[in-house]
C-alpha cells in the first residue's frame, strides 16, 4: 500500500519561480521571438516614417472615414513613445540574454568540437565523397590532413577502433562575429542615452571679437573669438564667414582654429559650428572712483529698437551697479520707412539709456531720455563714465556637447567588424571517417552544408584537389542540383 502511494506522487516538481525564469530565459533566447520583436520595431519605424510624409493624408483623402485615424497618426510621436522605448528595451535585453546563452555553445564549437561521427550521418548526408585508396588508414589520414591544412582547415582526428574519425573546419573565429555586431547595436543605444542625458546643444553662443565667453554646463570650457572675417559676392550674397577661435579648458588655452559653415571645430566632446554673425560695440564703463566696471563688446542686433525694427539694439548688464544699459545703433536701412528713424543717429554714434537691472522701465525708456554716445568720447550718466571705444563684430556659434561620441565610434567599429567577420569568413566544416578497406583504406567525408550552395561549392573545390593528391577519383553522392557545380558537370561528362 505504501509502495502504491509513493508511486502516485510526482517524481520531481520544479519550483514555480525556476520554471518562470526558465521560460523567460528561453523566450529571450528564441530566434523566432527576436524576429517578431525586430518585425514589430520595423513596423513602428514604418508608422513613424510615414508620419513625416504626405502618405497618411493621401489615405484620408482617398478614404474619408479614416480622417480621425489619420489625425491620431500624425499626432502620435512614435519615436518618443513609451511603446518604442519598450520594444527597444525588450530587444536590448533579448540581445544580452541571447548572447550570454550562445557563448558556451559557440566557444565549444571553436575550442572543443565533436570529432567523431557515425557512418549513418555520412550515408544520410546530402552530399558526400568516398575515396577508395591503396594506402593504409594512417597514410590516407595524413594525406587528407595535409591537403585540408593547405586549404586553411584545422584538422582534428580521433581513433575509434580501427577507424579514424576527423573533423575539419576553417574560419571558426567568424562564429564570434555575432558578438561585436550585437554589442555595437547595444552601444549605439547606450551612446544615444548618454548623449540625451549628459549632452546639450547651445544654439546661440555669442562671442564678440576679442572677448571670451564660458560654455557653461559644467564643462569648464570657454571660447575666445580672436578674429571674425566675412567675404561677400558683388551682389551682396555672403560667401563665407570665418571665426578664428581659441578654446580654453579651466583657463588654459587648449585649441585654436577656424570655424566656418560646414567646417566645425571639435575639442573633446564639444563641437563648435558657425551659425551667424553681427555687429557689436566695444564699450568701457568706469564708476565714480575711476574703477573699470565693464570693458567688453556688446552685441548689437540680437534685439531691435522698439518702434524701429531696422535699428539694432543691445544690452549691457551691470549687476554690481544694479543697472542695465540699453544701446541702440544707427538705422541699418534708412530708406525703409524713414519716419520710424526718430533718433536719426549717424555712423559712429550710439544711443544709450539706463534702467534698473530688474528691467522695469522708468523715465529712461528707450528713445525717451538717455544720451547719444559718440565714438571715443566719454559720456557721464550718473556716477558712471561710459565710452563707446569702437565698432567691432560678434560671431554666433552653435555648441554641441556630445559625450556619446566615443561610444558611437566604438559601436560603429564593432558593428562593421562583426558583419565583416560573419559574412566574409564563413565557417566551413567537414566530417569524415577513414576505415580499413579490402586493399587499403576507404575515406568517406561530407560537408556540413545542408541547403548551403557556397558550402558545397567549397567542398567540391576541395575534392578537385583531393583527386590529384590521393590519386583516385571519388565516388560522389550528388546533391539534387548537381548541374550547378562545375566539378560535378565535368565528372558526369
Amino acid at each position: 500500500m505504501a509502495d502504491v502511494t509513493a508511486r502516485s506522487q510526482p517524481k520531481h516538481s520544479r519550483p514555480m519561480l525556476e520554471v518562470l525564469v526558465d521560460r523567460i530565459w528561453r523566450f529571450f533566447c528564441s530566434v523566432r521571438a527576436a524576429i517578431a520583436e525586430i518585425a514589430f520595431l520595423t513596423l513602428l519605424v514604418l508608422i513613424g516614417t510615414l508620419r513625416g510624409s504626405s502618405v497618411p493624408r493621401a489615405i484620408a483623402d482617398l478614404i474619408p472615414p479614416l480622417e480621425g485615424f489619420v489625425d491620431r497618426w500624425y499626432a502620435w510621436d512614435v519615436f518618443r513613445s513609451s511603446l518604442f522605448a519598450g520594444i527597444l528595451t525588450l530587444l536590448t535585453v533579448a540581445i544580452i540574454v541571447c548572447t550570454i546563452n550562445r557563448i558556451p555553445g559557440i566557444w565549444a564549437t571553436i575550442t572543443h568540437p565533436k570529432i567523431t561521427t557515425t557512418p549513418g550521418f555520412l550515408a544520410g548526408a546530402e552530399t558526400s565523397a568516398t575515396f577508395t585508396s591503396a594506402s593504409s588508414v594512417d597514410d590516407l589520414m595524413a594525406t587528407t590532413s595535409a591537403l585540408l591544412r593547405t586549404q586553411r582547415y584545422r584538422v582534428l582526428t580521433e581513433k575509434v577502433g580501427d577507424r579514424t574519425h576527423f573533423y575539419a573546419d576553417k574560419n571558426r573565429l567568424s562564429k564570434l562575429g555575432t558578438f561585436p555586431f550585437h554589442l555595437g547595436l547595444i552601444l549605439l543605444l547606450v551612446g544615444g542615452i548618454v548623449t540625451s542625458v549628459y549632452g546639450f546643444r547651445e544654439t546661440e553662443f555669442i562671442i564678440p571679437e576679442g572677448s571670451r565667453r564660458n560654455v557653461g554646463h559644467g564643462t569648464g570650457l570657454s571660447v575666445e573669438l580672436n578674429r571674425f572675417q566675412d567675404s561677400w559676392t558683388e551682389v551682396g550674397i555672403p560667401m563665407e564667414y570665418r571665426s578664428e577661435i581659441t578654446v580654453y579648458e579651466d583657463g588654459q588655452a587648449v585649441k585654436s582654429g577656424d570655424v566656418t559653415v560646414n567646417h566645425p571645430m571639435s575639442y573633446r566632446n564639444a563641437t563648435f559650428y558657425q551659425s551667424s554673425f553681427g555687429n557689436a560695440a566695444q564699450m568701457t564703463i568706469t564708476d565714480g572712483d575711476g574703477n573699470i566696471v565693464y570693458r567688453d563688446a556688446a552685441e548689437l542686433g540680437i534685439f531691435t529698437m522698439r518702434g524701429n525694427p531696422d535699428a539694432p539694439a543691445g544690452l549691457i548688464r551691470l549687476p554690481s551697479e544694479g543697472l542695465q544699459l540699453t544701446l541702440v545703433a544707427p538705422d541699418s536701412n534708412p530708406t525703409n520707412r524713414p519716419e520710424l528713424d526718430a533718433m536719426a543717429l549717424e555712423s559712429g554714434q550710439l544711443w544709450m539709456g539706463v534702467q534698473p537691472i530688474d528691467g522695469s522701465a522708468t523715465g529712461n525708456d528707450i528713445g525717451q531720455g538717455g544720451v547719444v554716445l559718440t565714438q571715443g568720447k566719454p559720456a557721464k550718466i550718473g556716477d558712471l563714465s561710459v565710452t563707446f571705444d569702437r565698432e567691432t563684430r560678434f560671431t554666433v556659434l552653435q555648441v554641441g556637447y556630445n559625450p556619446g561620441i566615443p561610444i558611437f565610434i566604438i559601436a560603429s567599429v564593432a558593428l562593421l567588424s562583426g558583419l565583416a567577420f560573419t559574412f566574409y569568413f564563413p565557417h566551413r566544416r567537414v566530417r569524415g571517417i577513414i576505415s580499413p578497406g579490402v586493399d587499403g583504406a576507404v575515406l568517406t567525408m561530407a560537408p556540413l552544408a545542408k541547403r548551403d550552395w557556397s558550402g558545397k561549392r567549397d567542398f567540391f573545390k576541395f575534392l578537385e584537389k583531393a583527386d590529384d593528391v590521393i590519386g583516385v577519383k571519388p565516388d560522389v553522392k550528388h546533391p539534387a542540383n548537381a548541374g550547378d557545380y562545375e566539378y560535378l558537370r565535368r565528372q558526369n561528362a
Partner: protein
Amino acid sequence: MDSLVRLSFYCFAASSFSLIAAAVMYIVFAVGRVRVLKQTMATSTGHSVDSNSVHHEAGPIGFARWGTMLTVFGALFSTLAVVLRWGAAGHFPLTNMYEFSLVFVSFLSILHLVFERMYKVRQLGAITTSVAAAMTLYIWSLDPAMREVNPLIPALQSNLILTFHVGAAVLSYATFTVAFGAATLFLIATRWSTPWLPSPEMLDDIAFRAITIGFPLFTINLILGSVWAHEAWGVYWQWDPKETSALFTWLVYGVYLHTRSLRGWRGTRSAYVLLFGFAATIFTYYGNYFFGGLHAYGGV
C-alpha cells in the same frame, strides 16, 4: 564644361537603349520556349496516329549572349556618363535624382555582370537589367533642367564623407536589386516547373551573397550619414523621415538575415522577406518625393 555635360547625356542615352534591349534579350532567354514535338506512330491495324507533346525548355542561348553584351555596353556607357559628369561638375555626381539614378544604373549593371560571371547565371538579368532599364526610363522622365550641372547648395558643399555616404547608399540599393532578382527567380523556380532556371539553392545563395555586400554597405551609409549630420548639424540622428525610412529598410534586411538561420525559413519565406525589403528600398529611394525634412533636396 557644357560639352562634357552634353556628352555625358549622350552616353546615358546610349546606356539606356542598350539596357532596354538587354532586358528584352534576357527576358526572352529566361522565359524559355515551348517546343511542340509531333510524333507519328503506326498502329497494329495499319493506321497511323499523330501525337503532340509539349516541352518547355531554356530560351535560345544566343539571346542570353546578346543580353550580356548589351549589358556590358550599358555598364560602359552609364559609367562613362558618370565619369564625364564628374569631370564637368568637379565633384562626384550624387547631388540630385538625375545623378543619383545615373550612378545607380551604372552600379547595378556592373554588379549584375559580376554576379553573372561569378555564378554563370544569365537569367538573373531578366530582373536586374529590367530594373536598370526602368530606371533609365525614370531618368528620361525627370525635368530636363536636372541634366545641367548647377552650383551646389551649401548643405551639399561638404566633403568626402557625404560622397561616401550617398555612394554607399546607391551601391547597397544595387545589391538589394540583385537580391530581389534572385529571390524572384527563386520563387518562380520553386513554384513552377522550370528546369532551365538555376537551382533554388543557388538562387538563395546569390540573394544571400548580395545581401552580405549590401547590408554592410547600408550600415556604412547609415554610419557615415550620422557622422555627416554631426558635422553639419551637430546631431547624429534627428528622426528625419529619410533617416527613419533607411532604418526601416535596414531592419527589414536584419529580419532577413535572422530568418535564414531558422529551419523552415531559409528559402521561400526568406525570399518573400527580400521582396518586401526591395519594396522598402524603393520606398527609401523615392522618399524625397513625399518626405519633407533634412533630405528634402535633390531636385524633386
